[in-house]
């Protein structure tokens, strides 16, 4: 982990902020910190200097499992041919109310 004559780099954290009550936490960026608590403090200073949030999550980037980046990934293929999952698939006469 530590090269000769080099400091050990602090781990990378991903930062998620809830903008206000009722909204999801949304990814806003990343930062380095020595531990979870410092990551939270840094996240407050770096990402919420103007009341951007009411709650922050930080998570170590190496703890995240991600899908492969390719958009045509077979992972997403199962939903590709299921148009019947969308309301627009069903033709309903215009004069049927509240539908």
């Amino acid at each position, binding site marked *: 982990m530590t090269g000769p004559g080099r*400091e*050990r780099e602090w781990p990378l954290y991903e930062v998620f902020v809830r903008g206000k009550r009722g909204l999801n936490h949304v990814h806003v*960026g990343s*930062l380095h910190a020595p531990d979870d608590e410092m990551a939270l403090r840094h996240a407050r200073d*770096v990402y919420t*200097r103007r009341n951007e949030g009411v709650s922050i999550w930080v998570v170590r*980037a190496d703890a995240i499992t991600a899908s492969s980046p390719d958009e045509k*990934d077979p992972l997403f293929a199962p939903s590709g041919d299921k148009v019947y999952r969308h309301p627009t698939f069903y033709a309903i006469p215009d004069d049927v109310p509240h539908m």
Partner: protein
Amino acid sequence: MATTSSETPTHLPDDELQAQFEATIERGDRIEPRDWMPEGYRKTVVRQVAQHAHSEIIGMQPEGNWITRAPSLRRKAILLAKVQDEAGHGLYLYSAAETLGVSRQELTEMLIEGRQKYSSIFNYPTLSYADVGAIGWLVDGAAICNQVPLCRTSYGPYGRAMIRICKEESFHQRQGYELLMTMMRGTDEQRAMVQESVDRFWWPALMMFGPPDADSPNTAQSMAWGIKRNTNDDLRQRFVDMSVPQAEALGVTFPDPELAWNEERGHYDFGEPDWEEFMQVVKGNGPCNAQRIAHRRRAHDDGAWVREAATAFADAQAGEAAS
């Protein structure tokens, strides 16, 4: 997500990956960190984003110079907030560069060893408090001209960092202009300070857009890749056109006898910046180059014990939790 590794998503041959990459840019879609990308694209984005990050970090110094001597508590609070923003902007951008596999430590070393550049504007000194205003108005104004189109840059993490930065830059420009307006309502001496400061910063601000298009060999490729959205000369013209009426409203002039409205073009004509001076400053021979880097290096060295202590504390906490 800022995953640092770049994985080739599939086992496609390079020319097919290249075609997919180009199609993504053609559609106006963004390139994301783990996408396949040509090595030249990666290098160009890393260089541009790192240079931009370094500029924010070094950019704290000229104005930081005046924090302890701010003329009022109000101005001091504003200046502190602004300098803190510059630090934040540097951090957003370093994170964006790191998504392409370069480490923070490498970036810091490249800056303090002079292997990567930062904007030449920060190698000019700040000689009076009016400079805080002139920097906010002209330097941050020029930065906004440069940065707003970069919100649509083709590299996703860079564009997202730019969106955050642009939201905050508007405060920087307005506080500077308001500071100058306040001084212009003051004494003759204060008005003279404003004019003197504007005289010093006008040309360096124009140089912030980089050399003329004819001498900017990388522009065409960067535009083809969607990294850059406008040429240096286009942005410079836009900045001049925006600034002239602002100067009139403020009651100052720019030190350029050739500055005049051109009815036919629908733009202001203006003189040529001193490109020899620009090249000298870029090469490291500006008034403050050595001082800026020495200061950054000292801050890094002086902070070493803090970084070590925080790491040791984290290790101790982790050890306690494990036992």
